[in-house]
């Protein structure tokens, strides 16, 4: 394991990563952990139109071409269904055309992976889910021990107050909330009285974080691409089921 990890350090894979789970869409190119180039844009209902240029610019700016990419990494969300599908379908097309493996990365995993400098803590990664339910969040729980992040629950969906409630009866010395919020959640967080022992770190998932999570996974498991059927993490069922 350790050797594989090192070998990916010495001769790193070049990774093209895409993050499309929220409206600030980004694309990054990395040599292993080393970020070479990242571009982001604000997209509302025009992602499919703007993706090709976003990718082309990110790659060309550092004088590289798509043929030099070894791995494609794409966010699987959770997040906006259509936006995730647009990004993932585009990534699938890229991977097929380049004949390179595609890695699908949970955006919540990507957030958790970016927290390293703690010894023993519960990390809850979360962000708002649907505009129609302003207090509802997608979340997943992680445990951090000696700098290693372990996932302890899958991606789920919950009202923010209920989620906070469920965190207060634990035995954790440090509880870290990582993610971003909307006005309603910020308001609730500001006015609630208990749970002040928790820390809220404002972070958005980015393509670079997706790439980092991909590098870690390759270090841990070797380079194994997803199957053709890989889909976003929807969490919520398709209506009307």
């Amino acid at each position, binding site marked *: 394991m350790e050797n594989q990890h090192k070998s990916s350090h010495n001769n790193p894979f070049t990774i093209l990563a895409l993050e499309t789970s929220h409206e600030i869409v980004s694309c990054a190119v990395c040599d292993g952990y080393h970020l070479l180039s990242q571009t982001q844009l604000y997209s509302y209902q025009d992602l499919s139109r703007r*993706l090709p240029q976003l990718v082309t610019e990110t790659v060309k700016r550092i004088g590289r071409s*798509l043929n030099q990419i070894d791995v494609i990494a794409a966010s699987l969300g959770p997040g906006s269904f259509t936006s995730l599908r647009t990004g993932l*379908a*585009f990534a699938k*097309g*890229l991977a097929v*055309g380049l004949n390179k493996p595609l890695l699908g990365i949970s955006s919540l995993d990507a957030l958790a992976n970016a927290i390293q400098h703690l010894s023993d803590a519960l990390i809850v990664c979360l962000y708002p889910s649907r505009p129609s339910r302003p207090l509802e969040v997608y979340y997943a729980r992680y445990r951090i021990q000696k700098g290693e992040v372990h996932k302890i629950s899958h991606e789920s969906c919950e009202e923010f107050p209920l989620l906070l409630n469920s965190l207060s009866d634990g035995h954790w010395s440090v509880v870290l909330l990582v993610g971003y919020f909307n006005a309603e959640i910020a308001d609730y967080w500001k006015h609630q009285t208990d749970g002040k022992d928790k820390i809220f770190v404002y972070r958005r998932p980015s393509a670079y974080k997706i790439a980092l999570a991909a590098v870690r996974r390759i270090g841990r498991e070797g380079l194994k691409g997803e199957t053709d059927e890989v889909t976003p993490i929807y969490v919520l069922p*398709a209506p009307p089921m």
Partner: protein
Amino acid sequence: MIILGIETSCDETAAAVVKDGTEVLSNVVLSQVAVHQPFGGIVPELASRKQMEFITWVVHQAMEQAKVSFDCLDAIAVTYGPGLIGSLLVGLSFAKGLALSTGLPLIPVHHLEGHLFSAFLKQKDKDGDGFQPPYLCLIVTGGHTELVWMTRVGRYQVLGQTLDDAAGEAFDKGARALGLGFPGGPAIEKAAQGGDESAILFPRATLEGPFDFSFAGLKTSLYRYLKGLEKRLERKVRPTFADICASYQAAIVDMLLQPLERAMEEKEAPALIVVGGVAANQSLRRRLEDLAQKWRARLLIPPPYWCTDNAAMIAAAAFFRLKEGLSQPDLFADADPRAPLPSFSEAVSN
């Protein structure tokens, strides 16, 4: 010229490789009918999710069956609309990623224009018609019913269209009311076998536009009849279930034929193209053959497997558009769920 076509506008995931717009090297269609059957219609979010799962496999299959690699291709054609936005975006985004990474030009194609060119795909047993416009075209699918006058590639005059439901929709909704499965067309056709078409006189709407269609009234009339409210429509004592199905089907076919016949007369059309899923209906096909014979017109109806949504027709349309210089490679195209037929604007001469 070899083109890879990709089509994901509704509930079919399809890819095909077509040579010179007529010779189908491979045609892979993965239908989700079984997924949507329990709901009696297509669930859009579910359709998009399935498209996402199938798209890579379907494209690989099409390339493998055609025995070509991406180096052999000249272009990638993909449906940009109309259709379900979630489904469209999967195919369009996939095609963009593929085009960007292979350096192939991406040609966005209108779904209905694709249907029109399914009439020119070569079949095993007979040669195609060649391409000798003008054509009077009837497009009848689950989402569209349009009467189009085509004078050349890319030049389409929409003579009339449905004011409410599409013909395929009338079949689907009728089938649901009759307790038959989804999709409704084949279900009603099967149930109507041996039935008496004249047992019940369902109303045929008379519309202001001579070439327009309407099926909502007919559908309501069936609902009311099934509730026992419209006994007066019966022309026969105690009609059987097959009689009801046959009468309903006959009414839909009549509604399609009337504007078509008026258009044949006005345009003196030398040839008639009928495409779309409903064109697979045998009863409609027989009536169309009679009509074509009466007006001494050539009749082009693709075989049933090319009537339903497929990607070969998308590749074919892209070929004809490229040949005429009508399409430019476009990586920036957006999915458009309500895209109108792309007719270039010359003064329409009547």
